[in-house]
């Protein structure tokens, strides 16, 4: 009796191998990469079925869907990597609607010559992040581009989730008098990446705050219910960009207290050194919520009871303002605007 032919003659050389153009060409090499690396790591029925799409039942109520591309450089940074980031970031975008994230898709654009060991590390970290978050990566795609046409690997993920009955969070829902709650310290992710890029070293390493926030969100929804107006995760452009967006959508202004905004001393010091303002630095595991005044205390208590909200703080309130300014009382005692970021935040030169 003949044994069935083995699908792949040689094992994928994850230790020393590199991605080449054949890994994206649709032939056996690609099938092997998908099977041995992606399917093995993400490990779920829908993906293993080997279809070009994932099929699942639609639940009652409203669904949310979001998509995001990840191009972070360097790919590996203190506290995370592009893999975990691409899972957390998209889960968080789903969660900010108050939704429970269910499934993710993942699309990879890989540069020819990329080390399989690095790819495997990234895929492993994605799988772990998804597993911890109890979210499945159910479909995906792989493309390989010539050397020089990408920077190692780019990842796009799409997420879907369901919103609990009766919840309707929206950027235009902030009303004067509402309270602003922040879930923890700001600037950690941006500074962790920058410190790696600029080769900065600190006494205690600054780690990215990259984390999936849907657990925290669920606790807040339970505590705040209809008193929750909106939630946002302040990623690119930092807290400043997020609050300016909300101010524009809701047609209101904000008054913040700088002294109330938590910033780690090391992040503060690094910002000084780099000439950055923590309000503009990206976060990947923090959220800011606008809550009706009579629900603020309950939501804050729920946040502080969750491991990702230990440092949660009320940082200011919504005010009526036709100019839609985000104003800040500085720790120094003066006032100023927190404007949109223009261009890149660059170090001062003298």
């Amino acid at each position: 009796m003949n044994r069935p032919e083995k699908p792949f003659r040689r094992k994928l050389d994850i230790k020393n191998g590199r991605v080449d153009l054949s890994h994206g060409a649709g032939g056996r090499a690609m099938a092997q990469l998908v099977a041995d690396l992606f399917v093995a790591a993400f490990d779920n029925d829908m993906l293993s079925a080997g279809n070009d799409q994932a099929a699942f039942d639609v639940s009652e109520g409203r669904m949310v869907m979001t998509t995001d591309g990840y191009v972070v450089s360097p790919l590996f940074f203190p506290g995370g990597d592009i893999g975990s980031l691409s899972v957390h970031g998209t889960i968080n975008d789903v969660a900010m609607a108050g939704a429970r994230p269910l499934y993710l898709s993942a699309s990879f654009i890989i540069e020819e010559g990329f080390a399989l060991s690095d790819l495997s590390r990234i895929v492993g970290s994605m799988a772990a992040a998804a597993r911890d978050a109890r979210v499945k990566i159910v479909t995906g795609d792989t493309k390989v581009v010539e050397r020089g046409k990408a920077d190692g690997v780019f990842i796009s993920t799409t997420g879907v989730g369901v919103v609990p009955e009766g919840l309707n969070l929206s950027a235009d829902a902030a009303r004067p008098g509402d309270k602003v709650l922040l879930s923890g310290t700001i600037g950690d992710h941006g500074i962790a990446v920058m410190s790696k890029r600029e080769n900065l070293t600190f006494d205690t390493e600054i780690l990215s705050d990259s984390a999936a926030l849907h657990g925290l969100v669920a606790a807040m929804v339970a505590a705040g219910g209809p008193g929750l107006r909106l939630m946002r995760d302040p990623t690119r452009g930092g807290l400043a960009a997020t609050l300016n967006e909300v101010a524009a959508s809701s047609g209101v202004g904000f008054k913040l207290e700088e002294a109330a905004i938590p910033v780690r001393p090391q992040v503060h010091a690094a910002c000084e050194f780099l000439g950055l303002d923590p309000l503009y630095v990206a976060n990947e595991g923090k959220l800011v919520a606008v809550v009706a005044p009579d629900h603020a205390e309950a939501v804050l208590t729920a946040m502080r009871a969750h491991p990702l909200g230990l440092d949660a703080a009320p940082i200011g309130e919504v005010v009526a303002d036709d100019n839609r300014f985000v104003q800040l009382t500085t720790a120094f005692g003066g006032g100023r605007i927190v404007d949109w970021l223009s261009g890149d935040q660059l170090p001062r030169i003298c």
Partner: protein
Amino acid sequence: MKFVDEYRDGELAKKLASRIAASVRPDREYAFMEFCGGHTHAISRYGVEDLLPANVRMVHGPGCPVCVLPVGRIDTAIRLARNPSVTLCTYGDLMRVPGSNGTSLMKAKAEGADIRMVYSTLDALRIAEAEPAREVVFFAIGFETTTPPTAVAIKLAEKKGLNNFTVFCNHVLTPSAIQNILESPDVRDLGTVQIDGFVGPAHVSTVIGTEPYAFFAEEFQKPVVIAGFEPLDVLQAVAMLIDQVNEDRHEVENEYTRAVTAEGNAVAKAEVAEVFELRRSFEWRGLGEVPYSALKLKAKYAAFDAEARFDLQYIPADDNPACECGAILRGVKEPAECKLFGTVCTPETPMGSCMVSSEGACAAHWTYGRFRAASRVKRAS
């Protein structure tokens, strides 16, 4: 913030503010020019104005290196960058400064010029070493603080025998600019600009010391207080200036004793003196040609001088006629008095250099301070 920084302490600031409020004479106005962009930035960033009495006014000065660079120099850099063999290394802020006819380094880069953003002269030197086939030019700007690192880089390039590294030198000098402002008709004869004293440079003074300011204090009878770049430094300096004015003194005082000495940094000064010499004259945006106000490379280092290597001729060019940067840099106008401020000109689409750097008066006012104008309008209506 949880990080308590002693130079930003709100409690100390409150105490100092009430001391200032008690010391000002109600029957007069006080106007002090903060020379440096670093101070302009600190004042706006921390809302220092809110802690000053209504009759104490800060006038922004020309100490922002990006702001004072004239259009002609930006044009020259763009021409240089368009040379296919050249890699131009520049600070990020310079990328967006408008040149003539709506050009900028940013646009030249998009059109294919090899322009790289760097954080220091040494970054540029590294690029020159790594890419020997490229003519690497460092677009050097800045006051006395940034000059020593440029001198060090040039000497390092010489030591390493690099023959593809040059510097396009635009280093300028603080004392000549202050003197120019004090001698301007606006201040001296017409009295259209009131300046009762100066908040003197922080970092610049760590290099040159406090001595160079003695001349102004004496000749123009204006007090100078050297101050650090933290908001408490500025507040303290204002308190010291008010005391001097009230007591009719005009001395050079040093608030920034933690870093500045009378003589400055002898080693840094020696490095600079070895590599650079005075230019007979240099054009400043806002101030025009100012004699002996800038540096160039000595003939001995001509091999590292981009102006010599590429035979760069300076072609003066006019600012956008509606842009008031010039008047703002002289303290004659305020940003909000410019018709383009906040309409055509914002940090996203700057029409003048003062809207580019975060140390520029227009950018600082737009980014941090424009709510004040808005609330004034509201109160008036």
